């Protein structure tokens, strides 16, 4: 047995009264701090369950008259269920299944997309107008997240270049900046996202006019689910997914490289270009492989996400390690 017998105690072993009393106070203090801390954390956790303002809810509606577009990979598509329940949309919470729950009541109608900046004239488009700008085509793209997972999604939309040609950017327009919707009333978890909102992104003008860049209004055979960036977003498949900004409210043509949310949050880790590149690692994890959702083993990541034929020429001569 390891219980030692205490030797007989003398008067000098007695704890002085003030030390004894202070010790209890200290322990009670720590316990109090612990309980308060737990209460604060508990309150914050439970107060996350918010009830959003009731309003007209637009659930995805079927899209008709969609033609088969170019750029259709025949790799296995992910299910609509997967793609609508595994999302990074931090305005609606930072867990992968948060947006599916918290974006249910996101009001996406009426909607205005403003196009301004270095263009001949500022224009505002409603969703009805956007839908009529060009025939809707379905393209099946690989979508690669910077976190090293990927999906294959049939997006519906038309080339961003259609919109760009329509608004006639001036000679000063060198870059295109995008801004996503942000409203703390509809997105109460936004302040906890750890990134500054509204979400902003940007492309070089020649990237934006590349045939692959898709102004996206639907997925599978329906309009975009709220958690996937309803009602209108861009999809830039040769770059990491965070470049494909969701729920766009503004497109602005500018003459210098615009700020982007993830670059602002951590410039060492998220560059302006963020082209998918297995040879340039994220500082904290490798980008050489990815997990295709639904597959067991990881697969090697492709340069430019496999779209090198269409986009490699945009970066001829650029050091992609420097311009990550």
């Amino acid at each position, binding site marked *: *047995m390891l219980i030692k017998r205490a030797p007989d105690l003398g008067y000098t072993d007695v704890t002085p009264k003030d030390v004894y009393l202070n010790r209890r106070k200290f322990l009670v203090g720590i316990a109090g701090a612990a309980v308060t801390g737990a209460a604060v*954390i508990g309150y914050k956790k439970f107060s996350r369950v918010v009830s959003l303002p009731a309003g007209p809810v637009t659930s995805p509606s079927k899209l008709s008259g969609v033609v088969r577009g170019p750029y259709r990979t025949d790799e296995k598509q992910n299910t609509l269920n997967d793609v609508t329940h595994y999302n990074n949309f931090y305005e609606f919470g930072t867990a992968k299944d948060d947006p599916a729950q918290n974006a249910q009541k996101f009001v996406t109608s009426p909607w205005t997309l403003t196009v301004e900046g270095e263009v001949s004239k500022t224009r505002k488009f409603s969703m009805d107008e956007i839908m009529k700008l060009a025939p809707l085509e379905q393209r099946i793209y690989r979508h690669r997240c910077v976190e090293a997972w990927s999906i294959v999604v049939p997006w519906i939309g038309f080339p961003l270049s259609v919109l760009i040609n329509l608004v006639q950017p001036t000679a000063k327009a060198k870059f295109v900046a995008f801004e996503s919707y942000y409203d703390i009333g509809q997105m109460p978890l936004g302040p906890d996202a*750890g990134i500054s909102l509204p979400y902003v992104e940007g492309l070089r003008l020649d990237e934006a006019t590349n045939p692959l860049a898709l102004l996206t209004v639907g997925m599978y055979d329906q309009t975009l689910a709220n958690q996937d960036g309803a009602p209108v977003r861009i999809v830039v498949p040769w770059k990491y997914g965070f470049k494909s900004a969701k729920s766009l409210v503004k497109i602005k043509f500018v003459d210098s490289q615009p700020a982007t949310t993830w670059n602002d949050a951590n410039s060492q880790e998220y560059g302006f270009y963020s082209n998918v590149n297995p040879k340039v690692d994220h500082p904290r994890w490798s980008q050489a492989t990815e997990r295709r959702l639904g597959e067991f083993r990881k697969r090697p990541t492709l340069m430019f996400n496999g779209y090198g034929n269409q986009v490699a020429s945009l970066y001829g001569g650029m050091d992609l390690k420097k311009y990550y």
Partner: protein
Amino acid sequence: MIRLLTSKWTKVVVFAVCLFPLASLGWKALRGEMGANPVEFITHATGDWTLRFLVITLAITPLRKITRVPQFIRFRRMLGLFAFIYACLHFSTYMVLDKFFDVAEMLKDIQKRRFITVGLAAFVLIIPLAVTSTAAMIRRLGGKRWQLLHRLIYVSAVLGVIHYYWLVKSDVRKPLEYAWMVGLLLAFRLGVWVVDRSRPCGPRSGSSVELPVTAESA
């Protein structure tokens, strides 16, 4: 309360409760309820439970002191070993489902990715603790040496929190919650140590050495 704590059935119940997260994971796996990225789900769940059990284990001693019910010590070894079990599962998920036993890749990770380096360190540090958790081992090492070795759990808990903090992209709230809890539990011990030292006659013999009563078997 004391009767409840000293009954042998209580240990059985606590054991079953500790197994519940694991059973829940298994159930979800069988029913395909792990979302679109099951490997990520398992990795995060096992990591979370490792940290939770570490925190619960570290809370036993403060609980004993504050409530003045030493019998809580009966559960500390079991809880600590469960932390170790979940840590093993977390590491196995990484080694098998993420890296597929590719040792070269793992070594690269350990060298280059800080969060993996500290995660591995946190895991390696509790292996000797699991190995020396038995009564026989306590006798072999002797009380003082055993006590010193098992202080490594403090280091492991801190490294575990840093591992979590360094792996998240932007939302640091959960790692900070664990940091808070581990910090408080360590502050408590620091406080006890400081107060003990301030006694004019030094600590009473046997009072600052925390040993489980070894007459207990698992």
